[in-house]
């Protein structure tokens, strides 16, 4: 394959199709996460936050903003991407994708690109919503965007893998509900891991989500639980892992082709 015959029209067709699905379900896609985030602010930011001191020099209500954005970014990337590829498998329309002159790279680019676009947009909307509740100053806007995009891309890839692996709709919920949400809550979305007893702090360092949230929070406030370099390399590592899995899936035809 050469880059010359890259099927850009095919990629655009899939991307456009996926974004049209997003527009059709705009209400669920946008309103729900924004509502949820606002509720978190009311409960954690105002009710609990008013009784809490600052965390690492940052007011508690502001402290939880990066974690909340990440939480939405994870779940939305996963559900967008997994649903996007699972649904054609479920309805049978995947035949067209498999018989089209698009490479696996192009398929991934289109589906993951669309899913990531949606969740990046969503992340920015949540950020805007949050700034209505708390005054926010972003210290490293470039890195904030970089972490946002990288995380959205990584979890969209992860979601794509789940969508291909899933044999039923309940499978789509399985990993997000059972693994990602708990890891996020335990990953320092609402607290600094310094607040944990030392033993738990060590355990927490095995949670990959810690690094994602920590890096993102560093971009906001310049303080972090772990070094930003480690955060970045862990995020890139996870991205690479997902990319490797997707490559393997297409090479073997796993759950796509007989």
């Amino acid at each position, binding site marked *: *394959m050469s880059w010359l*015959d890259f*099927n850009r*029209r*095919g990629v*655009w*067709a*899939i991307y*456009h*199709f996926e974004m*049209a*699905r997003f527009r*059709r379900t705009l209400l669920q896609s946008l309103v729900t996460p924004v509502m949820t985030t606002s509720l978190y602010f009311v409960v954690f930011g105002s009710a609990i936050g008013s009784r809490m001191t600052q965390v690492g020099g940052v007011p508690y209500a502001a402290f939880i903003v990066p974690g909340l954005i990440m939480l939405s970014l994870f779940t939305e990337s996963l559900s967008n991407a997994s649903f996007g590829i699972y649904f054609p498998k479920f*309805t*049978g*329309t995947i*035949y*067209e*994708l*498999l*018989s*089209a*002159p*698009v*490479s696996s790279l192009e398929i991934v680019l289109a589906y993951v690109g669309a899913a990531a676009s949606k969740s990046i947009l969503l992340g920015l909307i949540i950020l805007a919503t949050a700034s209505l509740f708390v005054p926010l100053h972003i210290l490293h806007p470039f890195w904030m965007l970089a972490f946002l995009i990288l995380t959205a891309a990584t979890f969209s890839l992860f979601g794509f893998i789940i969508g291909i692996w899933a044999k039923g709709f309940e499978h789509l919920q399985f990993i997000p509900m059972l693994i990602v949400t708990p890891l996020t809550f335990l990953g320092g979305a609402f607290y600094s891991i310094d607040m944990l007893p030392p033993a738990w702090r060590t355990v927490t360092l095995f949670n990959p989500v810690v690094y994602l949230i920590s890096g993102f929070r560093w971009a906001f406030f310049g303080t972090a639980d772990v070094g930003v370099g480690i955060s970045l390399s862990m995020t890139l590592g996870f991205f690479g892992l997902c990319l490797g899995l997707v490559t393997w899936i297409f090479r073997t*035809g796993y759950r796509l*082709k*007989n």
Partner: protein
Amino acid sequence: MMMPVLSIQNLSKSYASGLQALKGVNLEIRKGEIFALLGPNGAGKTTLISIVCGIVTASEGVVIADGHDIVRDYRAARTKIGLVPQELATDTFETVWATVNFSRGLFGRAPDPAHIERVLRDLSLWEKRKDRIMTLSGGMKRRVMIAKALAHEPEILFLDEPTAGVDVELRRDMWALVRGLREKGVTIILTTHYIEEAEEMADRIGVISKGELILVEDKATLMKKLGKKQLTLQLQEPMDAIPAALGQWQLALKANGNELEYSFDTGEDHTEIPALLRRMGELGIAFKDLNTRQSSLEDIFVSLVTTRKGATA
């Protein structure tokens, strides 16, 4: 001979379940022909199509579509191929217009609203172009799938059981459409188990059974070669044995001696029947009724598949 537009060489497929769906199939499709692939359910028709279209990976063998290897040069090969699968699968929430244009884009072609309009008009879908697919009837959905397959102007079109569960009107439309496509030079490969469909449409026929292609023949030749005509004479008086004077026609005595049956190839000249009747008149054998019957493709097909079963049993 002209270079085949599709060349299938030694194609085999074994599924993980151990089922061997195809066993070393060789087939060449000529440019511009309508080829009907006949076979009972589970014979391997859909597997064969799925491999050519890239949905299933072959275990062995090579497929060349319009000069392009379907694996090594899949982009070029797939651009030439259109597929209408057997199962009804559509993007229910999309409009007809959006889904057909999507297909064209997916296959890497530049937008061409005039072409899409032509396709939709040919399929009587133009009035429905703004409707969501979920509001359409089953027959209309099938038309949408055909429109999607034609959106990128393929040169080879696969129709997998195109008229299964389709009403008479749509079936007639479909046949007209297929003939129209052939006139434009599109090669059409259809699978069916409606023999009448193959008989009506195909230039050539292939019969597949248990993963093996047991016969490929021009339809006319096939009908001539395997087609038999039968003349049945209902006798006024039953007879015990066929008189020796009628020996040259190799008649069979049926229905307790009440019927005489004469089988002959349609290829032979037809002077034998008057001769037979004349001789019977001379012998004083009277008959009260007669009928002739030509074997249909269905008879040929059934006899092929059953002899095959007998042979492998």
